[in-house]
C-alpha cells in the first residue's frame, strides 16, 4: 500500500488522567477517502481518542502521523489547520444566529478588514450547502432548525475550513430514525467527494450501514480492525464486549403468555398545557401484570407527558388513573411511588440524577427505607455505601465508587444508576422511558434481561421508546402515540415495523386479523 493512501496513522497511543487509564494502547490506520467506524462500549475510550485527534487532550504516549508526517496537535486550532474537523455529540451553535453566521462564528469574513460581511458569508454558506447538497437555508436562524438540521450545520462548520478528515462523535445519539438515514446519505456524499470520515458509534446497525472499515476498541485498547463487508454484527459485538452476546428479545413463547389483572388503567386521561394546547388526548390503556406494553412514536407526540402523568409529575385535566385497583388520579408522586411505581425518565441529566451528588446518594434516593439505609433517624453511611457498591457491581457501573459524583460518569453508566435505583424496589409498575438511549450492547442486553425478568415475575412494564427495534424486541403489545393520542394498541404478533412506522407519522393502517 502506498504510504500516502493513509491519511492518519496512530501508533501505541496511550492516555492517563491521573491514575485513571483512559487509553492503554491504540493503533489505528485510516485510509484516505474511507468511512472508518470506531466502535466500542461506553467508557472504552472512543471519545478520549477523538479528543486527542481534535487537540483537546494530549496523548501520554504514542505517535500521530498525518499524511505520512508525524504531528503533534496541541490545541483545536492546530487540529483545524491540519484539516481535522470535529463534530461533537452536543452541539455548539448559537440558536439566535443564522446558519451562515454559525458556520463562520469567530472567523467572520470581513469587509475592509473590519466589518462583518454578512452578504459574503451568506453567499459562501449557501454555496457550501449547495455543493454538499445539505438542504439547508443559509439565512434561517438555527433556533428554527430540527436536531438533524442542526447537526448538518455542525458538519458544515467543519467543512467550511477544508477539513480533510471529519470526526463525528456519536452523531446518531440525538437523531430520530429518519434523520439517521439522512445522515448516512450525507456521509456517503462526503465520501464520494473524497473526504475521510471517522465515525464513532456503538450501534451495530449503523456500522454495517455506513462504513468501509471498522475498528473495535475495548477498555482502552484497539482490539481488531475489519473491512466491514466481511464481518458480521455478531463478531463486532463479541469484540466490543469481550464475550459472545445475544441481544434476544422476549420473543414468542410456545404457549401464549397468561397475564394477570390490570396493574395500571388509564381511562380517558387528558393533559392540557398552560396555553391550552392538548398534550394528551383522552388516552385509555390497561397494562396487566406480567405484560410489557411498548409505546412507539416520534419524540414529542405526548410520550413524555404520558409517563409524567402516570407518575404524577404533571396534573391531568380529565380521566382517571388506577393502580392496582386504587384510584391514584390525584395522588402525589411519593404516594404513587410508595404504592408500587418505578420511574426511569427519558433524560437522566434532567430528571434521572443529581450530577453533583454522589453515586451512593443517587442510588439511595428512593431506597432509604426499603434498603434499610437509615438507623435511628440517621443515614447509616457504611450501609449506604455498601448498598451502592452492590449496585455498582450488579449493574457493572464503570468508573464509579460510592463517593464518585454522578456527573463524572459516562452517559451509559449514569443510565445504569437510574435503572439500578428504580429496579431495586421491584415496583409493580415500571414506567421506563428510552431505557437504552446512549447505552452499548452489553449494557442494553443486561437492561433488557432485567425488564423481561420483571415481567416474568408478574410486574407490569410500560416501555416508551423511539427505537422501534427495542419496542418490537420487548413488547407484548405495541401502542403508537401521535399528536397526543394513543392511536392503536396492537398485539405484537399482528404488528410489523412498516405498519407501526406509518402510524408514527399519523397514517392509518389496516389492522391485521
Amino acid at each position: 500500500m502506498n504510504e500516502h493512501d493513509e491519511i492518519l496513522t496512530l501508533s501505541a497511543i496511550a492516555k492517563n488522567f491521573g491514575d485513571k487509564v483512559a487509553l492503554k494502547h491504540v493503533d489505528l490506520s485510516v485510509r484516505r477517502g474511507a468511512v472508518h467506524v470506531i466502535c466500542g462500549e461506553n467508557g472504552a475510550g472512543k471519545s478520549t481518542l477523538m479528543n486527542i485527534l481534535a487537540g483537546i487532550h494530549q496523548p501520554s504516549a504514542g505517535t500521530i502521523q498525518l499524511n505520512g508526517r508525524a504531528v503533534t496537535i496541541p490545541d483545536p486550532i492546530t487540529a483545524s489547520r491540519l484539516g481535522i474537523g470535529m463534530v461533537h455529540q452536543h452541539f455548539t451553535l448559537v440558536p439566535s444566529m443564522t446558519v451562515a453566521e454559525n458556520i463562520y462564528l469567530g472567523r467572520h469574513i470581513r469587509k475592509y478588514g473590519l466589518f462583518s460581511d454578512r452578504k459574503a458569508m451568506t453567499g459562501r454558506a449557501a454555496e457550501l450547502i449547495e455543493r454538499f447538497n445539505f438542504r439547508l437555508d443559509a439565512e434561517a436562524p438555527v433556533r428554527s432548525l430540527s436536531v438533524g438540521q442542526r447537526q448538518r450545520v455542525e458538519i458544515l462548520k467543519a467543512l467550511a475550513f477544508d477539513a480533510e478528515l471529519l470526526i463525528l462523535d456519536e452523531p446518531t445519539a440525538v437523531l430520530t430514525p429518519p434523520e439517521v438515514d439522512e445522515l448516512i446519505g450525507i456521509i456517503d456524499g462526503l465520501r464520494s467527494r473524497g473526504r475521510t470520515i471517522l465515525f464513532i458509534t456503538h450501534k451495530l446497525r449503523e456500522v454495517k450501514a455506513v462504513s468501509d472499515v471498522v475498528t473495535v476498541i475495548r477498555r482502552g485498547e484497539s482490539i481488531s480492525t475489519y473491512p466491514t463487508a466481511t464481518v458480521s454484527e455478531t463478531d463486532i459485538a463479541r469484540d466490543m464486549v469481550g464475550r459472545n452476546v445475544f441481544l434476544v428479545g422476549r420473543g414468542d413463547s410456545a404457549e401464549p403468555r397468561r397475564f394477570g389483572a390490570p396493574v395500571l388503567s388509564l381511562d380517558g386521561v387528558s393533559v392540557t398545557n398552560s396555553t391550552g394546547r392538548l398534550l394528551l388526548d383522552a388516552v385509555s390503556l390497561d397494562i396487566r401484570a406480567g405484560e410489557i406494553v411498548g409505546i412507539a412514536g416520534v419524540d414529542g407526540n405526548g410520550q413524555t407527558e404520558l409517563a409524567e402523568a402516570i407518575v404524577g409529575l404533571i396534573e391531568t385535566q380529565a380521566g382517571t388513573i388506577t393502580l392496582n385497583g386504587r384510584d391514584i388520579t390525584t395522588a402525589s408522586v411519593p404516594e404513587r411511588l410508595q404504592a408500587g411505581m418505578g420511574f426511569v425518565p427519558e433524560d437522566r441529566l434532567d430528571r434521572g440524577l443529581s450530577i453533583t451528588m454522589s453515586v451512593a446518594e443517587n442510588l439511595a434516593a428512593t431506597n432509604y427505607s426499603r434498603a434499610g439505609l437509615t438507623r435511628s433517624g440517621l443515614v447509616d453511611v457504611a450501609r449506604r455505601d455498601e448498598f451502592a457498591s452492590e449496585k455498582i457491581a450488579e449493574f457493572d457501573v464503570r468508573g464509579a465508587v460510592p463517593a464518585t459524583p454522578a456527573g463524572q460518569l459516562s452517559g451509559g453508566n449514569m443510565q445504569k444508576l437510574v435503572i439500578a435505583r428504580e429496579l431495586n424496589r421491584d415496583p409493580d409498575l415500571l414506567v421506563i422511558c428510552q431505557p437504552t438511549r446512549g447505552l452499548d450492547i452489553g449494557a442494553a442486553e443486561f437492561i433488557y434481561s432485567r425488564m423481561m425478568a420483571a415481567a416474568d415475575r408478574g410486574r407490569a412494564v410500560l416501555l416508551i421508546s423511539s427505537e422501534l427495534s427495542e419496542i418490537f424486541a420487548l413488547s407484548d403489545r405495541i401502542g403508537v402515540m401521535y399528536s397526543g393520542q394513543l392511536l392503536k394498541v396492537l398485539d405484537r404478533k399482528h404488528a410489523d415495523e412498516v405498519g407501526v412506522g406509518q402510524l408514527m407519522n399519523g397514517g392509518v393502517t389496516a389492522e391485521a386479523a
Partner: protein
Amino acid sequence: MAGVLIGTLKAIRAPLAAILLTLALGFVLVAFITDDPVQAYRDLLFANFDSVGNFALFLNRATPLLLIALGVIFSFRAGIFNVGGEGQLYAGAIATTVIGVMLGGLSPLILFPLAVAGGILAGAFLGWIPATLKIRLGVDEVVTTLMLNIIVLLFTSYLSNQVIRDTASYGAVSQMLPASIWLPDLPGVRGATSGIIVALVLAGVTWLVLFRTEWGAQLRASGTNLRFAKSVGIPADRRIITAMLVAGGFGGLAGALYVLGIGHRFEQNFSPDYGLVGLTCALLARVHPIGAVATSIFYAMMINGAAYMQISTDVPRSLVDLLTGLLVLLMTARPKLKWGRS
C-alpha cells in the same frame, strides 16, 4: 470516624489556603502604608488574644457570624439564594427584646425560653415569606430577601425610636432586658457570650442533619436538581420552604442571642453588616457547616482585630474590606489554579 475527619479536612482545605494567600498579599499592601507592617498584622490577627477583654469581644463577633452562616448554608443547600440574613437577624433581635421588655414581670424560667423562641420564630417568619412567594408565584428570592432586609431594618428603627425606647439613654436604644434572662458569660472568659457554644454545637448539628439524615439528602437533592428531586418522590416544595424556615430561624436565633448575651437591649443598627459577612463566610466555606466555623472565626478575628490595628498603627480598619475582596477573588479563582494536582 477517619472518613469524617478526612472529609472535614477536605472541606476546610480550600478556604484555608485562600485565607493564607490573602494574608500574604495583604501584607504587601500593608507594607506600603505603614513603616511597621509586622506590628499592624500582629494586631490585626493576634491582638484578639492579648487580653481576656479582647478575646471576649472577638468571640462576641464570631457568634452571630457563625449562626447566620449556618442559616445561609441551609437555604443555599436547598437551592435558595437567601441574602436576607441581616433582616432575619434584626427580626430575631427585636422580637426577643419586645418580649423581654414587655413581659419583664414573668418568671425568668418562662420568659427566657419565650424570648428565645420569639426571636427564632420572627426570623423563621422572615424566611417563610420569600420561600412561599418563590414556590407559589416564582418570585425571585434574591429580590424579596434583600427588600425584606430594608423593611425590617426600618421597622426596628421605628420600634427602638418610638415604642420601646429607653428615654433615659442617649441614642436609639430600647430599655434593658431584665438581667435575670441575660445569657451567662462563657465560663472563664468575662464578657464573652456563651452563645458561642450554642453556635458551635449547631454547626455540628447542621452537618449531621444535612449530610447524615434522609431529610438532609432530600433537601440537597432539591437544591441540586429540582426536577430530579420531584421525580424520585421528594416533596421538594415542602423541603425548600422548611429549609428557609430553618435558615430564618438561625438568623433569628443569632439576633436573640445577641440581645440576650451581648447587647442586653436592642440598639438601632447594631449590626456591622453581620448578614452580608455571614453570607460571605458561608460561601467561602463552600457552603459547608464545618468550614463555616473556620471562616466565621477568621472573619471575627479580622473585624475585631482591625480596631486594635488602627489604634496602634496608621493602617485604617477598612483594610478588612480590601482583604475581603481579595479573599473572595482568590476563592472564586481557585478552580483555575489547580492546586495540589497529582
